[in-house]
């Protein structure tokens, strides 16, 4: 290995630094129409009429599209696979008659430039018939917004894993309650899409920053009754996603309007629309119960979760179930139960968010573990060490071995490097001598997945061909979010071929050219697709040797590869450059040097980390400051350690925001926060010099060079650790996340008042 394990900038770093990289918002197409949306101004009701007369009078307006002048195009924005694999009903229209939240799509105006489109959209008159609406759990549970035949609980599940322990009845019970706010993904690039339709070939082309080109293809093609091979979807450079660009909101609109107008269209949401009219992380309420032996052994874990799906059910049925599985990937939970309920409200739909609910469940479970540590009079790290899964054990939900898991080592290394005991002692002294400021140190762990397996039989395909000058181009369906998948895959292929990385070209996903792929979900890119890249590289390497053997008329066993040339053992003067072998193959074997690989994934080791947070709270203002942060992750072989660390630091930034600040809220009239002025992200002065350490000796059997995932697991312990540190600082039991200044001050005020009583 030469490149794998070294620190490399992302593949397009230079074009991002110069500003030359073209994101979707920068694309200009000849004859392009710019779209502006008309969104519902009411939270629940019917669009009775749409009057576009004034809008159409404006010069440069090409058309106004709404429910009453287009066919009833319906789709499900969560679908990423063909209907037989993922049986989801079309849940919404491209343009609604029945609107379910402020921000639901009512109409699209197409015009010659963005300004004309915006002005025309403001002239579209929409008449509504309003219905009662619900914006939070309490209102939703009354059913006041339900239509005839609709129940307040949209979905309910009871899942049990494992067997009860015989001594459970003598165990010590610990319970917690938690409430979590909705979150906005806040990718810096707001949502955007361009589409073009060629009526002569009946071909539709869509470009957007997205996590699954084949998912968009199945949704759009089915909706428009088009053959799949006539719908081409291209993954555009992505200015961040975090799960926010894996469900389809703009692509169906652009597809319909491009086809209707028979001209290219472009739709760019502003921040307000990206916040209000796409989707958010759901709000949750949860009650967690743990039962322990006196020595700290966890005997049982019960979760009771209420989830707000928002206006459309989308992924919520899966979103409440999937995180439960991750409860068995970090700790030894012999018996676990989930009771889940999903309600709908007239608010922005809930959808995928980095970690897919797992960070939320771990906030609750880690909160419970901190209370348990106090109840059992154990150190919080010791309690976790007592219960983490070790090599040789199994994930009892997936029924798979945990493989070479290193959660224990993450905890031990983190405890040492974070100076856990010294910090906790110093906090106690600091808090005793400070009236206003209080400090706390806390730990949290988390586990996640590397692949869709066992939920689906995951797989990936890659093709690579050597050009006649010895350079290589590979076709693989990559969906890089900006965290370096393309560069990681180029490093993998370069090492497999012993070829300099700049001689490898690798584009991103394009349904017209790259192999079928599920997309970037379940942290599967490196583990599954990256492994296919490695296999493909090895296959191409064999082809090179095979051709060289024929060329030299010697057995293949006598040949080896070094420095992008084929050598013969014992003959130091023999050095066939790839270029010569490639050209010889074309002229003599009448083929190009080509290889493909079909990788069928059959493992899913646990992937975990332990995080340590040190927080200071100003008890007068409720303001919080993260003083120090360390994350230690079990990643197997890090392909590009610098990007693993940078990505994890980003997860920590996001999780600190989730724990302390970020909340996507709704006013009583159903209008959401729709501005970054009112949705507070952590900025540079807010954060400490975040430390991330990687433990790399717990190699996976199947990931490329032993790699495991990093994309989502980094997010899992963060809010849990930070919230735990706030509670530790205040010797409190704050239950609502984020622990913003208002909540902290309110809690402390009530506590003081109670003491006085």
């Amino acid at each position: 290995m030469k490149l794998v394990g070294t620190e490399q900038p992302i593949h397009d770093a230079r074009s991002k630094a110069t500003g030359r990289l073209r994101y979707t918002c920068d694309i200009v197409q000849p004859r392009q129409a710019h779209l502006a949306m008309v969104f519902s101004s009411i939270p629940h009701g019917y669009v009775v009429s749409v009057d576009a007369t004034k809008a159409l009078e404006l010069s440069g307006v090409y058309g106004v599209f709404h429910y009453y002048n287009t066919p009833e195009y319906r789709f499900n924005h969560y679908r990423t696979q063909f209907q037989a694999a993922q049986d989801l009903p079309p849940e919404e229209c491209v343009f609604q008659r029945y609107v379910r939240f402020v921000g639901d799509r009512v109409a699209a105006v197409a015009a010659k430039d963005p300004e004309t489109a915006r002005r025309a959209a403001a002239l579209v008159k929409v008449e509504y018939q309003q219905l009662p609406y619900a914006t939070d759990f309490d209102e939703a549970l009354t059913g006041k917004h339900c239509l005839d035949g609709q129940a307040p609980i949209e979905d309910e599940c009871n899942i049990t894993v494992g067997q009860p322990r015989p001594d459970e009845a003598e165990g010590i019970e610990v319970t917690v309650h938690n409430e979590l706010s909705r979150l906005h993904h806040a990718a810096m690039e707001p949502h955007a899409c361009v589409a073009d339709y060629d009526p002569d070939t009946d071909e539709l082309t869509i470009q957007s920053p997205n996590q699954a080109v084949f998912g968009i293809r199945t949704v759009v093609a089915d909706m428009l009754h088009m053959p799949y091979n006539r719908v081409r979807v291209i993954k555009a450079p992505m200015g961040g996603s975090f799960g926010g660009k894996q469900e389809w909101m703009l692509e169906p609109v652009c597809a319909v309007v491009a086809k209707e107008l028979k001209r290219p269209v472009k739709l760019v949401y502003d921040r307000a629309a990206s916040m209000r009219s796409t989707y958010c992380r759901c709000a949750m309420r949860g009650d967690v119960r743990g039962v322990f032996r006196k020595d700290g052994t966890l005997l049982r874990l019960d979760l009771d979760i209420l989830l707000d799906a928002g206006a459309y059910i989308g992924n919520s049925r899966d979103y409440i179930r999937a995180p439960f599985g991750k409860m068995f990937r970090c700790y030894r939970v012999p018996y676990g139960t989930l009771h889940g309920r999903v309600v709908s409200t007239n608010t922005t739909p809930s959808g995928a968010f980095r970690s897919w609910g797992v960070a939320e469940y771990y906030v609750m479970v880690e909160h419970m573990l901190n209370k348990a540590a106090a109840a059992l009079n154990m150190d919080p790290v010791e309690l976790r060490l007592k219960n983490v899964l070790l090599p040789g054990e199994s994930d009892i939900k997936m029924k798979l071995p945990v493989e070479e898991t290193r959660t224990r080592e993450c905890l031990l290394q983190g405890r040492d490097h974070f100076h856990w005991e010294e910090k906790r002692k110093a906090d106690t002294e600091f808090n005793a001598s400070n009236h206003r400021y209080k400090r706390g140190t806390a730990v949290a762990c988390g586990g996640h997945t590397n692949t869709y397996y066992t939920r689906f039989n995951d797989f990936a395909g890659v093709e690579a061909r050597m050009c006649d000058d010895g350079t290589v181009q590979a076709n693989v369906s990559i969906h890089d979010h900006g965290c370096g998948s393309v560069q990681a895959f180029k490093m993998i292929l370069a090492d497999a071929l012993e070829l300099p990385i700049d001689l490898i070209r690798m584009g991103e996903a394009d349904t017209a050219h790259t192999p079928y792929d599920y997309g970037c979900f379940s942290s599967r890119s490196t583990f599954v697709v990256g492994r296919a890249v490695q296999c493909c590289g090895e296959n191409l390497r064999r082809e090179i040797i095979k051709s060289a053997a024929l060329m030299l008329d010697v057995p293949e066993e006598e040949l080896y590869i070094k420095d992008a040339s084929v050598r013969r053992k014992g003959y130091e003067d023999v050095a066939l450059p790839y270029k010569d072998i490639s050209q010889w193959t074309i002229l003599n074997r009448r083929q190009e040097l080509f290889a493909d690989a079909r990788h069928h994934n059959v493992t899913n080791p646990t992937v975990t980390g332990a995080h340590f947070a040190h927080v200071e709270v100003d008890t007068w203002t409720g303001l919080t400051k993260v003083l120090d942060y360390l994350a230690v992750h079990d990643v197997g072989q890090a392909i590009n350690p610098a990007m693993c660390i940078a990505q994890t630091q980003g997860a920590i930034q996001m999780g600190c925001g989730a724990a302390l600040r970020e909340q996507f809220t709704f006013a009583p009239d159903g209008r959401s926060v729709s501005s970054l002025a009112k949705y507070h992200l952590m900025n540079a002065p807010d954060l400490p010099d975040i430390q991330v350490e990687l433990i790399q000796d717990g190699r996976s059997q199947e990931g490329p060079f032993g790699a495991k995932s990093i994309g989502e697991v980094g997010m899992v312990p963060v809010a849990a650790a930070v919230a735990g540190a706030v509670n530790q600082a205040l010797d409190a039991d704050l239950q609502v996340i984020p622990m913003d200044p208002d909540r902290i001050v309110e809690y402390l005020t009530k506590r003081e008042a109670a003491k006085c009583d």
Partner: protein
Amino acid sequence: MRLNFFVNDAPVSLEVDPQRRLLDILREDLELTGTKEGCSEGECGACTVIMDGLAVHACLTLAAQLQGRHVTTIEGLEKNGELDILQRCFVEEIAIQCGFCTTGMIMSAKALLLHNPNPTEEEIRTALSGNLCRCSGYVQIVNAVSRAARELGGEV
């Protein structure tokens, strides 16, 4: 109005609405799309450019404010095919992920170093407080600016 100003040292003369945003003038009229729109209200800093030596939000700067001014955008940093030191340090320090904040971040850092060639880490973090990055924890970004300052001759 007839607007005469300078963009990346070149004179520009345009007939524009006085209320047109500098961001739209750059992106649509002059096709300088390196300046990005992330929030449209001066909160995220993705549209940061330098006007007469100061970092400004192109989304909050109107045509009427531009008469005779000198505006530098990300496209103005590279000279003769060679990256500006800040651009190179952002690449080499792994300070770039999705890249959507990068150009604004570099312009804010550029404005900082114009006035303070020897900033402390705290000064760097403060100068970048109006530039949001969602991919990172700002560590490599701060390192990149710090290193650029060092390479330019200051001691950080």
